[in-house]
């Protein structure tokens, strides 16, 4: 990945011994570069060359895991700056902070409840960050114990005091917590602890330069980066630099990042966190457990990390809402899941028994589908004819979205069904049905 055949060739023995099955070392290098061969096939390569090639072919942002089991959080493996180039791989982990001076058990229970259901999927926060705000090692260890006993979420242990961290790790070290963390003054001791428990470690620099030096000095590979910036404008700059440099294979920055939404203004803290989610943060630490603050962020994360090549679609088939009968209205829409769920939600809200036909537009919305030629009278007719709706209802009326009123003439002609132009927004469905529907 990323290396040219010539760059690889430089590292090979250049003896052309053919043991790899290729006629020359250069030919082998070309095969490697195109991913058609693996390095193991050359028995003569030196260890130094192997390491150089391995690290050069490693992903630009290392994969780092936090926690164990079902709730394990994976970060890294990112390959792009913009989601339209290729999706962002691992959604930002949301950590909620608990101070060791708080009523830890209550707080953690509250965090456990930050679970939201959205179009049939469950979304939640990912980490509990226990903060050693007391400065006391014993208190910290107690808080870590209480947190661990009360939640399944992996922990972030936040203390810059190696003695406190050591105590906390005696309790939580077996569960692969994130150690947060190392800085210029405690680097050796923290790396030592991280190695002992084989746990991921945050390294914080006072700025990008110091961060790069500390990463080099640490010699450790399970890292999360903190550039030290806390103001949102500066965090944006640093996050951008770290991602850009990682993609340029500046190795010290080839790790996921952590950000802290610690703005003293509680609304601005949520806004800042939104920026971090959009702009490359591996983890964002929040100091609020108010669901009104967390729901927007979890939703934003879901949106930003959606694969842009694969819109979320529902299966294109006949759906029933409520208990529809032969006189019930038939709504035509697209199979973009949000479009479908909006229509379904508003039909339900209006307590209407109805059929919904989401036409397969490859999961794109009504107007986009229409513009792209995927939501056409032909496709709608095909679905009407094949889904069996004609046997379910005695009338012959279709309701189409108001935004595509232009389709009605052609659709009527092709399908033989009468076409009613519904509201532009699904929210208008209940009043539309009240005023306009009779089978």
């Amino acid at each position, binding site marked *: 990945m990323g290396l040219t055949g010539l760059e690889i060739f430089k590292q090979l023995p250049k003896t052309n011994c053919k043991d790899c099955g290729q006629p020359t070392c250069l030919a082998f290098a070309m095969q490697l570069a195109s991913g058609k061969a693996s390095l193991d096939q050359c028995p003569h390569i030196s260890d130094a060359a192997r390491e150089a090639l391995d690290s050069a072919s490693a992903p630009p942002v290392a994969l780092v895991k936090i926690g164990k089991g079902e709730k394990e959080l994976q970060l890294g493996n990112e390959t792009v700056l*913009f*989601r*339209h180039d290729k999706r962002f791989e691992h959604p930002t982990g949301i950590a909620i902070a608990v101070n060791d001076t708080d009523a830890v058990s209550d707080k953690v229970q509250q965090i456990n*409840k930050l*679970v*939201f259901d959205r179009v049939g999927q469950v979304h939640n926060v990912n980490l509990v960050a226990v903060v050693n705000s007391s400065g006391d090692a014993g208190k910290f260890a107690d808080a870590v114990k209480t947190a661990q006993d009360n939640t399944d979420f992996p922990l972030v242990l936040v203390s810059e005091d190696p003695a406190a961290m050591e105590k906390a790790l005696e309790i939580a070290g077996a569960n692969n917590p994130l150690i947060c963390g190392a800085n210029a003054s405690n680097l050796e001791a923290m790396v030592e602890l991280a190695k002992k428990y084989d746990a991921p470690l945050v390294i914080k620099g006072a700025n*990008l*330069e110091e961060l*790069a*030096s500390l990463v*080099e000095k640490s010699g450790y590979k399970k890292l999360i980066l903190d550039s030290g910036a806390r*103001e*949102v*404008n*500066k965090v*944006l*700059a640093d996050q*951008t*630099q770290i991602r*850009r*440099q990682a993609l*340029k294979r*500046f190795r*010290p920055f080839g790790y996921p990042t952590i950000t802290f939404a610690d703005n003293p*203004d509680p*609304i*601005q803290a*949520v*806004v*800042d966190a*939104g*920026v971090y989610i*959009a*702009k490359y943060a591996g983890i964002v630490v929040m100091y609020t457990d*108010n*669901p*009104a*603050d*967390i*729901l*927007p962020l979890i*939703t*934003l994360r*879901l*949106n*930003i990390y*959606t694969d*842009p090549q694969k819109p979320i679609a529902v299966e294109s088939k006949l759906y029933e809402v409520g208990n529809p009968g032969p006189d019930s209205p038939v709504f035509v829409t697209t199979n973009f899941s*949000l479009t479908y769920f*909006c229509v379904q*939600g508003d039909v339900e809200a209006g307590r209407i028994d109805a059929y919904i036909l989401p036409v397969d537009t490859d999961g794109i*919305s009504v*107007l*986009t589908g*229409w*513009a*792209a030629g995927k939501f056409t009278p032909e496709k709608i007719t095909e679905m009407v004819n094949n889904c069996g709706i004609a046997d379910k209802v005695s009338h012959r009326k279709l309701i189409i979205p108001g935004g595509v009123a232009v389709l009605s003439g052609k659709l009527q002609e092709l399908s033989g069904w009468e076409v009613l132009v519904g509201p*532009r*927004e699904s*929210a208008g469905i209940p009043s539309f049905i009240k005023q306009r529907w009779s089978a």
Partner: protein
Amino acid sequence: MAVTIAKEKWTSKVSEMVLGTEPNTVKVGGESTLPFLHFEGEIPNRPITALEVWDLEPTDWPDILKKPFEGVLNDPVAWAKKNVEYGADVVALRLMSAHPDYKNATPDECAATAKAVADAVNVPLIVIGCGVEDKDAEVLEKVGEALNGKNCLIGCATEKNYKTITATAMVNGHSIIASSPLDINLAKQLNILVTEMNLAANRIAIDPLVGALGYGIEYAYSIMERARLGALMGDKMLAMPVICFVGQEAWKAKEAKSPDDENPEWGAQERRAILWEVITATTFAQAGGSIFVLRHPESVKEVKKHIDKMMESNAY
């Protein structure tokens, strides 16, 4: 360890649009880098906020959205003044009464309202029709005339009605909003059609018909990122500032409309709803949005606070 700051060498920039008249003009656009990357290029103008005023009382606004406008919801002039008090950089007048489903107001009636509002406030004006394309063409023709010389931003011009709206903008000295449904090629195409009529490229704002947080925000987000990259690489037909009708979308979201007791696990409605509008706007700011049309005054305050911070330098 030396870290070489990675800077892109962009060759072009976003065009700069001026709204309003001296001494109260507002400028948007002109950036020669990606949003808020001060370390890399110039960001001469900050993104701006607009607050909506309707020419009839909205029926489907939740109470928390009506509350700040109590007493003025029936009076567009008073409402517009209130918007200025609330700190909106510009006022966005929505001529909903023109809609056939509402009052089906005539173009002359709408023009009179627009004139009254424009005369009452000193900030620049955005005037938006009712969304019915034919009607908007008729209405904006008269509105453009009535606001001659006031250098407003009028719309929304679509593939169907852009000719009338562009013509009135040219004759009367306005800029236009060019709307196209979530497709970068359609946006570009419409900009080409409009500029072919000889309206200057810096008098067009792109409206990509954004979706709210949770309702397709990512589509417009990526279109805006691509448009900005295109602009910076020299594509003049994508270099227009982007306008985002955030309020209209955010306040449609279930998460904004649902009262405290309906989904208690979602937290209090007011905070949730305002964050829904604010985060929708600030996320688009990261993708390159320049004009945010909002509905709640609290959102204006919070978006401005955020932008103040983002406009502080982050040069290395």
